[in-house]
């Protein structure tokens, strides 16, 4: 099932834009609509677009499953440990320990409309990035595994 050149080139051109839009949604999760889940899903749809456009064996070197799995684990551990860090710092599990400290993401915010400052939100942006990585990798892994194991001619090959 090989796609035509038009599909392949369009997918190649679209891919960076999709990834950048997804990264934007993740990074601005605490300011604009969206967040880790949504941005991660958008980025994963970019990966799936590549997968569909390049229905051949090259894709194996392009999207290595093991790296995606490691990214997924890293995202989840970042999420869990940033929540656990609050316990180590002497407060409750999942406390927002970075907010209003003046450190990274720690600028205090006034109530009411404001232009939106990136350096706010405490652990919310950290968790957004963690979930973004996790969702990107998890949905891509599911798609890649299903893609490879349903491929009529190359099912059952080395991973």
């Amino acid at each position, binding site marked *: 099932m090989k796609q035509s050149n038009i599909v392949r080139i369009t997918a190649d051109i679209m891919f960076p834009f999709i990834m950048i839009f997804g990264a934007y949604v993740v990074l601005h999760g605490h300011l604009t609509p969206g967040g880790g889940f949504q941005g991660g899903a958008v980025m994963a749809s970019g990966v799936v677009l590549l997968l569909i456009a390049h229905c051949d064996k090259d894709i194996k070197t392009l999207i290595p499953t093991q790296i995606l799995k490691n990214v997924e684990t890293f995202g*989840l551990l970042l999420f869990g440990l940033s929540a656990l860090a609050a316990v180590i710092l002497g407060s409750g599990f999942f406390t927002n320990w970075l907010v209003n400290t003046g450190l990274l993401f720690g600028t205090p*915010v006034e109530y009411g409309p404001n232009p939106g400052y990136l350096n706010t939100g*405490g652990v919310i942006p950290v*968790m957004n990035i963690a979930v973004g990585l996790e969702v990107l990798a998890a949905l891509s892994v599911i798609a890649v595994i299903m893609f490879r194991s349903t491929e009529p001619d190359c099912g059952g090959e080395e991973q």
Partner: protein
Amino acid sequence: MNRKNGITVCIIAIIAVVLIYAQSGISFGDPVYQDMDQYFLLNGQVQTGGNNICTDVVFDFRAFDTLGEATVLFTAVMGVIVIFRRLMKGEEYEAE
């Protein structure tokens, strides 16, 4: 086959009617109680520092649920890896 389909349609119709009847008891867009929503709207921005109240709720007030949802996704991935492991690797596999 046709009779089975008929029964299925009847059951779905009954469930649908019951659910529509149930939710007609709740007024849309005008809830009786809205104190928790008001709390989020008034305090969310200052307490968590995020302008997007939805994200404040999802990643601060109910962050534990979000960890749970991320875990659901992780579970799905592990399930897919486990179930497709034979198709992926073709390795010999012994039971239990």
